């Protein structure tokens, strides 16, 4: 903020003297301006392409499952998810079945599927666990209680895991090259929009669902996000309008951090 301009403002700026070089040819100037604008858009569009299309391609590696697993077929045979993805007696969730769970049926090759043959010969007979790639694997800092959600909360698998149980082939596993996250956690859509409850499994997605649950505990129907914002504003502007429905956390007034983190 040099003081030079302090005084400059007192004088008409159009009043430029004739001492300088002659003003440039207007046509030439227009042309130059067009170039400048053109290159601005070139840069803009190029970077948008890089950011929206090329970058996501580069960010995720694509990995095939060691065995192409047919969920639909198995589901037909065993009836429900819990047959293989069961609760242990200590209330923990078994997650992806280990070899031991499969051996009952797959001690020997049963059908003609080469994938099954591969499974039996390369893993069962070799007593080697299958290095499954887990689409919905949460990072180590997360404590997720299947018991609380499924046994207490009565949620079904589809809400978070989608219709994987109906798949006939294992989809490609995409892993973030920087973080090691499965892409299903952050969501396939790079812009972060989701259509279904199972499209993404980030903390905010947990929070959204819990917010709805909290609302529905006190109100008759779940609120739309906009409605919630309005409620919140009313809550601040007119304290005492609503019953206090705070969670245990002193910091966030939601669930305490330790509820979901370890």
């Amino acid at each position, binding site marked *: 903020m040099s003081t030079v301009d302090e005084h400059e403002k007192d004088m008409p700026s159009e009043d430029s003297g004739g001492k300088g070089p002659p003003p440039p040819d207007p046509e030439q100037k227009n042309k130059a301006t067009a170039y400048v604008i053109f*290159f601005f858009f070139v840069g803009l569009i190029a970077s948008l392409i890089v950011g929206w299309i090329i*970058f*996501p391609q580069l960010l995720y590696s694509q990995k095939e499952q060691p065995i192409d697993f047919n969920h639909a077929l198995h589901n037909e045979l065993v009836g429900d998810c819990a047959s293989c993805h069961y609760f242990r007696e200590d209330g923990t969730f078994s997650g992806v079945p280990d070899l031991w769970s499969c051996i009952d049926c797959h001690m020997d090759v049963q059908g003609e599927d080469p994938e099954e043959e591969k499974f039996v010969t390369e893993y069962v007979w070799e007593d080697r666990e299958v290095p499954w790639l887990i689409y919905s694997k949460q990072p*180590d800092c997360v404590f997720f209680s299947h018991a609380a959600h499924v046994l207490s909360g009565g949620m079904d698998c589809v809400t978070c895991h989608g219709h994987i149980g109906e798949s006939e082939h294992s989809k490609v596993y995409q892993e973030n090259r*920087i973080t090691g996250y499965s892409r299903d956690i952050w969501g396939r859509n790079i812009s972060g929009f989701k259509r279904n409850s199972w499209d993404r499994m980030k903390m905010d997605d947990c929070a959204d669902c819990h917010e709805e649950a909290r609302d529905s505990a006190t109100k008759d129907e779940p609120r739309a996000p906009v409605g919630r914002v309005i409620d919140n504003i009313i809550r601040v502007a007119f304290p005492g309008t609503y019953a206090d429905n705070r969670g245990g956390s002193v910091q966030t007034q939601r669930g305490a951090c330790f509820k979901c983190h370890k």
Partner: protein
Amino acid sequence: MKVGRRSFLSFIIGGAAGTALSPLPWKLTDDLSIWTQMWPWTPVPKDGAVSYAGSTCTLCPAGCGINVRMVDRRAVKIEGMEGHPINDGGICILGLSGLQLLYGPTRVKSPMKRAGNRGSGRWVSISWEEALEEVAGKLTEIRAQGRPEALAVFSGKRRGTVPALLSRFMTAFGSPNFVTAASTQDSYELALHRMQGVQAAAGLDLANTDFLLSFGSGILDGWGSPVRMFKAHSALKDGGGKLVQIEPRLSNTAAKADQWISIQPGTEAALAFGLAHVIILEKRYRTQFVSEYGGEFEEFRQMVMADYTPDKVAKITGIDPKTIVTLAREFSRSSAPLAVCGKGGGDTPGSMNEFFAVHALNALVGGINRPGGIWAVPEPGDFGWPDPEMDETAARGMQQDRLDGAGAPPYVATAALPNRFFEAVAGGKGYPLDALFVVESNPCFTEPDPETVKAAFSKIPFVVSFSSFMDETAQNADLILPNHVYLERYEDVPNPAGFNRPFVGLVQPVVDPQFNTRNVGDAVIALAQGVGDPVASAFGWDGYEACLEEAYPDQWDSLTSEGYWMAEDFDPAPWPEAFETASGKFEFVPEGLQRGYVPAEIAGEKGGFPLVLTPYDTMRISSGYVGNPPFMTKTVPAEVLKGKELLVELNPQTADQLGFSEGGRAVLTTPTGAANVRVHLYDGIMPGLVAMARGLGHTAYDKYLADKGTNVNRLIGPTADPVSGLNAAWGIRAKLTRA
């Protein structure tokens, strides 16, 4: 030109705007922070099904039951076993650190053969077949030469099937030199043997004691079965009982005691006799016991009356006569008083005179085999194995004198004399040894004056270590046949230290062997087979597991289901049947008791060494054959270990006289050796004493333990007790000079 530059700038601005409007910078920022949350070099423990596996801890003689938490096949945590008779859910610091030993970097991962000079640290891995063949070959050679006695075994344990197998092997092979490490328990056993005429372990009925008088025993510093002692102490506190600690240093036990009485070190026997004096004088003893079962009581009475008046004792011990009288009254007034002795953690035997005196005190108040007193617990018998067949060579070998002189006059009743064993070998006394097996022990570190041990090693051409860890002894061996760590093997733990019922704990494998190791029991059986008949015929088992099961035919069900077997309804022999001495009475004046006060022997002239060095034990340092795991070393206070330097405790008054301030560097010299130390000023220690923690100063093991501090055993040579022949050194004269 101008257009070009401006257009380029415009392009950059457009690019920046576009980038900002794309997910790239934002996702990248987010992902980079997530990357820091999941750094690939920070381990993520694998999740799995949780289960618990029960077993018994063998890291000390306590025999605690443990529950190991497993995640799939990994052991992730050791916890105390609820309801276990010894530790009931509690667990000590060493037991908790066990997994660091199991998965630790100092494990010997396969049989190893020395490649360079001894101690050079150069080894080659060999197969078990090669290793066993090499040892068997050597043994065959020794037998072929007709001198089977040239084989010796040094075992850390004396009880249980593994020592029994080793002993059996030695008998069948023909060598009397089966040497075991000694502890307070050996002194106790000898006291019971001399005074009660029984071959039994001393069991303390702590549950019913209401007055515990400890003559320097580290009740809360690792003495006996530590967790059991801790629980007993807490129960004493809850029940309004009393603990009195007599020792010259405010140890953790002394600090927790209701009364701490500082005493001139080495004069504990005199105090015990002094208390007896008061009790007898005031007729506070248990008349029925003394009159009916007290052997030579009159002689005892005369002795304490003449030589141990409170004033005389006060002069000897430095304790106020009034305190002595009060203590005697309180002790004898209690309904179930109990006096114990054996200094510190109880890893070293002590002066028999002291054991006799303290045991006599228990007898005076009628505490022998009574609730709240001290019980004679029968030693586990033999395992019902038929005697091994001995050929002529073996029989001839067994006729030879033991190199340590145990079992022969003057130490007839002592089973083994480890201190004399190494002295004899190092000094070239007796016949030379051709081979030595070292099992579950680390004499190059734990024995007093380890230099003598090393000198003894240099006289033995073939040393085989069975250690699971690359400890000092394994480093000085020629061959290592690594044992499983306790979490990988079967074993029995009979009669835990100080427990007052016949008891066997079962060690069971909770994880698969992590490395190419073998149970030492299996190795011995294989060796016997390698040597051939008649040794082999004494070892007809398929393997150690079968042998173990056969050893406990009646207890096996209980062992496998409960993890232990205990004689629930055991009652100690009532007084009429309790004493198997010649007189059938309790001998108040056993053979070997010193009449009149003789100051305890201590090495070093007073002139050159104005101070007295005493070692002390702490729960946070494992001073036994297992080196401190990293977790334990982490808990060692900075007042004990700073960097690699050990601090010795010194009373501020003494420090002032010597010109030391807190942390000052010094050279600690004793007649046995010298070490660089630092000084920690501690008000809780008698002036004139220097106290040093036992268990540091390892040269082997890993960077978490090696070269930290000084091994106090290096500074204190053994002193043979005239009765037992066992090491009775509780200290040594010393001097501190500025470094």
